[in-house]
């Protein structure tokens, strides 16, 4: 049990550090990054004790998680959930309103992250209320309520439209 846990822990910890760094990298020079860390509280029986999760957002000094802002905690939590997913590969990821607490800069960082990761072997299906996010997707599935309160769906292929200059620039960096 311990070796299973340690194997998972090492991989997830490594994922987390790289994912958080990527997710928080600034959109403009000098592209500062944040750093994240998972630490075992008990090295002997790790699964019995806790795992301490700490992050330092770009350009900030160290603080406990509960002292961070709502958006900063949200980015950290998302990075952690992504690092769990990286442990066993999956052909698709379905994400429900993960950007609820994000300001526009964090939304764009998330767009950059998803656009870099999405491909035929890792499909992203994301539920979002934020236009700033979903305008960058390849297709939209629109859901609405009929008069009788049941759901109806419509799909729109966004790839038939050309990408804006800003969107292209976002990805190049």
């Amino acid at each position, binding site marked *: 049990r311990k070796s299973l846990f340690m194997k998972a822990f090492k991989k997830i910890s490594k994922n987390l550090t790289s994912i958080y760094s990527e997710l928080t990298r600034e959109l403009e020079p000098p592209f500062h990054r944040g750093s994240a860390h998972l630490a075992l509280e008990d090295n002997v029986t790790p699964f019995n004790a806790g795992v301490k999760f700490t992050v330092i957002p770009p350009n900030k000094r160290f603080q406990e998680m509960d002292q961070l802002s709502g958006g900063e905690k949200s980015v950290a939590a998302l990075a952690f959930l992504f690092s769990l997913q990286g442990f066993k590969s*999956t052909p698709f990821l379905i994400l*429900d309103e993960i950007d609820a607490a994000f300001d526009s800069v964090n939304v764009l960082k998330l767009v950059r992250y998803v656009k870099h990761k999405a491909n035929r072997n890792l499909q992203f*299906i994301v*539920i979002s209320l934020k236009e700033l996010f979903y305008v960058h*997707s*390849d*297709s939209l599935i629109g859901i609405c309520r009929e008069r009788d309160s049941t759901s109806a769906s419509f*799909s729109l292929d966004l790839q038939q439209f050309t990408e804006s200059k800003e969107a292209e620039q976002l990805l190049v960096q």
Partner: protein
Amino acid sequence: MIISLEIKDFKSYKGIHNISLFKEFSCVIGPNGSGKSNILDAIIFVLGQKASAIRGSRLSELVYFGAADKTNTYVKLNFLHQISGKIYPIMRKIVNTESHYYLDDRLLSYKQFATELAELGINIASKNFFILQGDVESIAMQNPKQIADHIEKVS
């Protein structure tokens, strides 16, 4: 890659709904209460998650309220397997109070269903292919012991 979904009488989806045009990066959009999370619920439902994992529901609560025939609810997911280039129809039907699982139109036991999906690269037991609404906020509030539990579940 998920190609399309066919949903019948599942939660807020009355009758048959074909949802297509899923691409490498797709977004589901719409007002509060319209049925977006219900699409995610349909996907995790067809991929073998317990009804209780869907907002603590019972199987009967997943059937559209006004369904004329209360025993014909199903979700069918068309999955493109990249390695073989073949499209596999994956289906789960609610028949009375139990679930019937189908892959390629063959009725399978849950065990066989899970095994065959794993061969296609879909690990339904590891639950790592979805993040539910509110999961991010809840991780942000957790203590070290809970974080350790998440790692343990995945391993």
